[in-house]
């Protein structure tokens, strides 16, 4: 599904990812953990195509395509979804209108028929239940006046509607209370299948109790320094990140 090889990338000429290599297979859930400043969010933004985040070397292959060559909207249409760390408020853009436009541009690109208003509403209602969102949210402006938890739930709701092949969650769990965390995890679990892959980027292990990953990677100083199974997350929770940093230093 996703094959990242020796990726060097950064923002404003500052290198943050320093040779990251990662393979995510079809149907797998990978967690990327790491201390602040290790490059977690940079990885998410580079994969989603956020302007100003530039790859200087290395390759990213997604379903056989050169992902880095595609503009952000093309990546989304190809099935890449980024649940943002800080979802932006867009006053005046209606939530439902926006999401319908988004879904239909994805469907059109993938050769599927566009949904009409009724079909879309039906789908949206179904997915809203999944994230326990009130229907009144739909007629508000995108994220405007939403609480932090509501914004994150809205990200998961959009993900559920768009049904991406590769979902990237950029610290979706940060700042969430236990109920919201559970809802987010359930939303992601509902997406899990042999055709869907998930990349969960997080600082804490909490989310991974509900959303059990197949693989856990530790990112430090722009590189993956340790990989393991779900038990690695627990070890990190107990021992913190320092021991990894020490281990890395020791091997240099």
């Amino acid at each position, binding site marked *: 599904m996703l094959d990242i090889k020796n990726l060097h990338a950064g923002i404003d000429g500052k290198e943050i990812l320093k040779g990251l290599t990662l393979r995510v297979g079809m149907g797998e859930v990978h967690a990327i953990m790491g201390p602040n400043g290790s490059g977690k969010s940079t990885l998410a933004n580079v994969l*989603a*195509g*956020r*302007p100003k985040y530039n790859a200087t070397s290395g390759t990213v292959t997604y379903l056989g395509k050169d992902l880095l060559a595609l*503009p*952000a*909207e093309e*990546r*989304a*249409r190809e099935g890449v*979804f*980024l649940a*943002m760390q800080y*979802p*932006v408020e*867009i*006053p*005046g*853009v209606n939530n439902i209108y*926006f*999401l319908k*436009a*988004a*879904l239909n*541009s*994805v469907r059109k*690109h993938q050769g599927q028929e566009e949904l009409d208003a009724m079909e879309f509403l039906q789908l949206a209602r179904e997915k809203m239940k999944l994230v326990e969102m009130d229907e009144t949210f739909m007629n508000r*402006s*995108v994220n405007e006046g939403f609480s932090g938890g509501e914004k994150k739930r809205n990200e998961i709701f*959009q993900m559920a509607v*768009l049904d991406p092949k590769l979902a990237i969650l950029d610290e979706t769990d940060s700042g969430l209370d236990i109920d919201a965390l559970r809802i987010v995890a359930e939303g992601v679990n509902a997406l899990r299948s042999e055709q869907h892959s998930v990349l969960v980027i997080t600082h804490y292990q909490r989310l991974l109790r509900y959303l059990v990953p197949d693989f856990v990677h530790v990112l430090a100083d722009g590189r993956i320094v340790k990989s393991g199974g779900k038990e690695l997350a627990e070890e990190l929770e107990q021992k913190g990140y320092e021991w990894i940093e020490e281990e890395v230093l020791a091997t240099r």
Partner: protein
Amino acid sequence: MSSVLVPDIRQACVEPRHIDGEPERVRRIRAQAAERFQTLGWPTTRLEEWKYTSLLPLASIEWKTDERPPEGADSVPPFGDRPVAELTFINGALHANRSALANEHPGIRILPIREAMETESFGQHFARYADYERHALTALNTALWQDGAYIEIAPGTMVEGFIHLLYVGGGNAGHPVMSHHRNLIVAGRGSQITVIESFFGKGTYFTNTVTEIVAGDGAVVDHYKFENESLEAFHIGTVQIHQERSSNVTSRTIATGGGLVRNEINVALMGEGATLSMEGLFVLSGRQHVDNHTLIDHVAPHCDSLELFKGILDGNARGIFDGRIIVEPDAVKTSSRQTNRNLLLSETAVVDSKPSLEIHNDDVKCNHGSTIGQLDEEALFYLRARGIGEEEARNLLVYAFASEIVERMKIDVVRENAGRALFSRMPSLKAESRGQKAEGWLR
């Protein structure tokens, strides 16, 4: 009879126009106004109120009145279904076949203003509010007005729906044509009325319009102005509003057309407890120049005014918001808020924003502010990251910026027309995405 302007900014001189059967008072006012125009001269950028707008291109053309309809004037599309009444003026003259007066409705009196000069209300209000002593273009209009609408709503009359005034301009046989429209709207005590003025045209012409509005005690008046003139047109428009006790006026201006435009809206809050909501949206591209000039004068205590102007500028367009609020010494307990927000879509578009407040007593709640910015890159990325193409994402955000004003318009047809005007003037905005097509006169 045709009126002519000398094509020289140093020579502001004009013969007052006269209409058959004009009362002596009107003849006198016209003569005084012509004299004032000559004395004041064309406004120049040396005047603080005109510092952003040079009228040199306007004053250099030999304008003539010519009431023959320009070619194609009939193709102006209808504004929408079922106005209560509609008056159409083409190059300054009333066109009866495109007009419908609603005089069968009790309490509503609508006449071409040249037929209303003998009414009591005309005598009482005409030229009392729009200041031809100090404003040269108002003086020019007062000296030369050809026709316009006279609307009188009896006390307690609630007019459902809206009254539409349509103006169409255009040059004739290659000659530049000017039109001077003059309207008087008098809403009696406790009455309610909505008036929409819309301006269209083709080619080079000059529209100079003055609308005086009197909102009596407790009257509710909604006034809309759609300035959708041709891109080669000159448009000077003055809306002069006089508010009495507890009246409630909403003024909304959408300016998308015109090459050189001055939108002037002046409001005097004369009676206690009056409320004013003034909103404006200007959407410009190419080399358009639109100068919005507003004055809200809080004369009486306990009045509220809320002003919001938004500008969207692309290409080499220049937009101006010059808004002044005066709180007079007696206007205690005034509440006033003034906001101007501008969105620049190109590197070369320019906007000047000059909000100002003059407060002459200390028992008020007032604030004002202005912003100038570009499209939010974060929002743009958010939309693109969901699969929406860059152009469509930009359009969505531009429309969202305007929607605060457009969506608040209460009447469906008004809102739709505002949306259509917006799409028609912004080539990058896709009208078809909202099921609307804009062609020909609407562009």
